[in-house]
């Protein structure tokens, strides 16, 4: 989606927990967020032009042999894609670390201006209704005229009774 990552360097940032931490993106597209607390965090790429997935990052301390958590011990990181508005589930596949995040879409802010087109005009349901009414106005009398007068009389008589 995004071929040249270097343009992100001055147009995007990494935001953790809605602004608790921010990180800049390097020319080669790498980034690092420092001094993150243990626990769960929401990682977002704030970009004005590209859509990026949101990621739930869980940082936990690796348990030592005695089964106790140790300050300054090595932390393990589990990252998963999340959808805004849905619960964070542990069932989602864990992403490889270091994270590789790629843009999922480019924002398209504009609506193309529709030029004048006959087809578009006549495909409008109202125009179709108009067309049908006009058909009824002009073609039906013609059909009436072409009809056998006796059949017509029969038809009119039938409706009268």
């Amino acid at each position, binding site marked *: 989606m995004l071929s040249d990552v270097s343009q992100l360097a001055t147009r995007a940032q990494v935001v953790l927990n809605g602004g608790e931490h921010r990180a800049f993106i390097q020319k080669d597209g790498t980034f690092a967020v420092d001094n993150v607390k243990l626990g*769960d965090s929401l990682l977002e790429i704030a970009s004005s032009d590209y859509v990026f997935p949101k990621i739930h990052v869980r940082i936990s301390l690796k348990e030592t042999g005695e089964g106790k958590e140790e300050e300054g011990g090595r932390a393990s990181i589990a990252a998963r894609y999340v959808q805004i508005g849905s619960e964070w589930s542990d069932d989602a596949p864990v992403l490889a670390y270091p994270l590789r995040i790629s843009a999922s879409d480019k*924002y398209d802010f504009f609506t193309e*201006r529709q030029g004048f087109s006959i087809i578009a005009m006549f495909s409008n349901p109202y125009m179709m209704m108009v067309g049908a009414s006009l058909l009824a106005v002009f073609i039906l009398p013609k059909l009436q005229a072409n009809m056998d007068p006796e059949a017509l009389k029969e038809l009119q008589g039938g409706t009268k009774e």
Partner: protein
Amino acid sequence: MLGSHSLTHAALAAVLAVSSFSMTVQGLFPDEAGRIDWYRAQIGVPKSIVAHTQEDRSTNILTITDRNVLASLNPDNGEIAWRQLFSPTERINALKVRGSLALTHSGGNETHVRVWDAQSGALAWGYSQPPSPNYQADSGAVEFLRKSQDVLAIVGDSLVRLAPNPSKPVWELALNGTASYKRLVVQDNVAFIIGDAVLSKKQPKARLHVVEVSLKTGRVKQQYDVNTERSLGSSSSVVLESKEYGGYILWRDDKNIVWNIHRLGMQEPMWDIYHAKLVQSELMPVDMLTSTLGELDADPGLIADKPRFTLTYTKDNKVKTVVVEMTHANDKLELRKVVGFRSDNAIIAGSGGATLPSSGASQTERAVVAVRTSGAVSWRVYGSNKTPTHSGELAYDAATYGPVTAASLYYVGGDPRVLIQTSGGLVAALAPGSNAPVWFRDESLTHATDMTFLELPAPASSAEHAAKATDPSVLASPVTRYVLRWVETAKSLAAWPASGFGLFGSSSDTEPGSGSQSTLEALVPTAPLTEGDHFGFRKLSIFGTSTGVVAALSTQSGARSWTRYLADNGTAVTVERVFITRRSQPLANTPSLLTVVGRNTYGNSVVVVLDALTGEILGDGGIHVLPFNHVKVFELPTTEKTTEQQLLGLATGGSEPRLAIWPATAEAAKAFCALPESVFFDLGALAGSSQLRGYRAECPTEAELDPWKESSAFLPSRSWVFDLPEGEVLLASSEYHGAQTTALLGRVLGDRSVLYKYINPHLVTLASRRAAGGIGIYFVDRVSGRLLYSAVHESASVSDKQPFLATQSENRIIYQLWQDSTPVGGSTEGAQPRSKGYVTVVAEMFESDKPDTRDESKAFSSFDLKLPHVITTAFMAPEPATALGVTRTGSQITTRDVLFGLSSGKLLSLPDQLFDPRRPKKSPTKDEQAEGLMPYMPSLPLDPKRVLSHANVVAGIAHIKSAPTHLESTSLVASYGLDLFFTRTSPSGTFDQLSPSFSKVNLVVTTLALVVGCLLGGPMVRRKLTNQAWA
């Protein structure tokens, strides 16, 4: 019969078809971008500027600003080449440049060191130091090492050496909080760090603490105190760095006439004494007592083979500056005068030019500029000669952006450029031989605190102008004015065929002064904007800033109409609020009034009244400094009779607040006391408070109102106290802004019954931090102090980095806060969070939960108020937002859009229907379908078609304001903070306008074709009928 019937049907259908075309318009068309909106990228007021010369000898200006932006500017036009926005709470302290790399030091106790590619602005590498308990305030410095890519930095309470791409420092030296280290002098093998020592009972005397550190190992070689009372950065001390001779501290002690020179690392003797008279022979001892010292180079470690500083003294009432250079002769230190010149009211600056290490320091790069700041701004560049090498002047009026406060010098292809900066926030580049700036940047609005819209009078026809000059009585009656306008229209209609039926170039969108103009005209607009347009798109947006600037911009083009710098005793007034207190009638002689409320440096309230159209300061006093300091300012619902000026209330704080009014006249006080209802007010969320207090203004007897002085005030009685629950602290309060209009009193449900809206103009929303964690929300009635509704968000948190945002409109309150987790039904403590993110909560208030039930009393009274029926719902926000707003239209018939300023630089506008708390969470019933309620979705969509700012990166949106236009469908939207972005939007489509693609030519041609058809067809039909009759 059948035919005619279907024809009327067809006509109706055609009308519907046309109207349906206009309703389907959604999103912005590419050709509208930049035409209906305007955008200005800003950086803030520079704190440090370094010109950076690249390999190809081209120059860029790198700057760090007070809005925490690192930016690169084009030296030829001042445009932003690139910028990097730091977190709003992360102050950038220092900037250094070497070759193609820039180095920044930012943050406080948690310090960040980052190296940037100066060409592209991309981060090369960075390092963060976690906070330390021993951190001394203001400590921190950073420097490149010589002959290496490594960086030495004072971060938090440590000195670290960093190699590129560090996971951890090469070495780290804990400083144990011994001093507030601010200076770093790097030598080949060692570095010195200098700080103001921390005072203790044992050593209560101020002194400088010096630590010598080995660059290789990071070990302390020695540390000692230098006994001087001068602190770092004082005007009587300088630090000098030299590659060859080492580092020095030079200072003059109080009441002393000699200089003390300490060579860093040398303790025996601690200092030498030097006589300034050897440098400047005319210097007498008495002149030395008041002399000052100054450093010249923004980045001294770079070009200082011969370090230099300035000595400024006054002799015979003339201020003189001498540039002194340090050299060594025969292994003996020597100070030498380079140049001396007169410098009354001048700012002296060296060339901040960073050069390539290979090119060395040429003469131009050793130049000094002196900028005279009083009177006309004039400048001179001195080399080593007494006659300046270049000089120039700027036609500048300090009443627009304030006096010049800083200057720097850089070179473009050998030509000097002088960059000046004013206290109001103007940055301008000057070149020799022109009194206009080469370019300028108006960065004052990055400090905007408030903004208001001023309706401009609709363009008056030339006939009306003529009538005003000859017979003003014609203008008094709307009927005669209408006739006058018709006469004018008839005249222009006669000239219409001659103009080619208006087919060619009708440029109604352009406004006077928006065409091409010189930078001088742009800097000082000669003709203020005094006329609007017929649709009300062109208004004035009047900003007040904390740097003392009040500026009026056209909402249509962003062109400045006028700028005024407000200062009291030479220092800028911190403007807090701007109010339009009188709206003039079209063609009337009484001007619209703008009342500006702010504070001076002592905290006193300051009020200034200006002509809103021209920016002229009115009244004899000009700036009124009041003998109190206000806590809150608000509009009062009455006007002074003689001047028709709207009253403002200024409430002071303390245990017994007072309410002063503006204008401070007896007339105004009488108008205030004549109000049919008492005035109730609260003081808002005062820092750290745990209660909200409500007051009622009391009127004294009529006799006491005369004479009413500026110091007079009403003594309000406290009518209620709203105490928060135990341990809660008030964080923020929000209220209605401006008069509210409502088109519909209720909501029609699917079964044709009505839910009546609960609209209470006195409603105040409070947010508080709970002792047990989480955020409490309270809706309080300002008049009675009654609690109308409360909610608790247990896992929410609010901080500088995760702000609380709220907006109130009609019967709906929308607020946003950060939710650490969303516990669902009986979640236990310590459970894994189910999700995190910003939550947008909507609370909609109705008079009753039962439809068709309403309070039938004629008068609204807060005292016998029924509690509202509040329906709330929450949504997950798509991205972190920094500001919230709602669109406003003339009669509010058009639905509102909710506006979000997103931290990724977008201004997003989402339709009102999305925020309906009644959106069904289960499959909608028939009634709900009939009402048109959308099924509930937990997240708000980020639809790019609804991003008003489209491809523009609107950084740091802090405020979103909206104003109605004369078209009910359309609303003006303005966002400010760091960048400015103004646009207009039509939440329900442009139902009252023809689309821009509508062809008037086609309409005329079709009508003509029909007429021709009738004329041709008429005789044919008649002949056919005649023939039928004969048959």
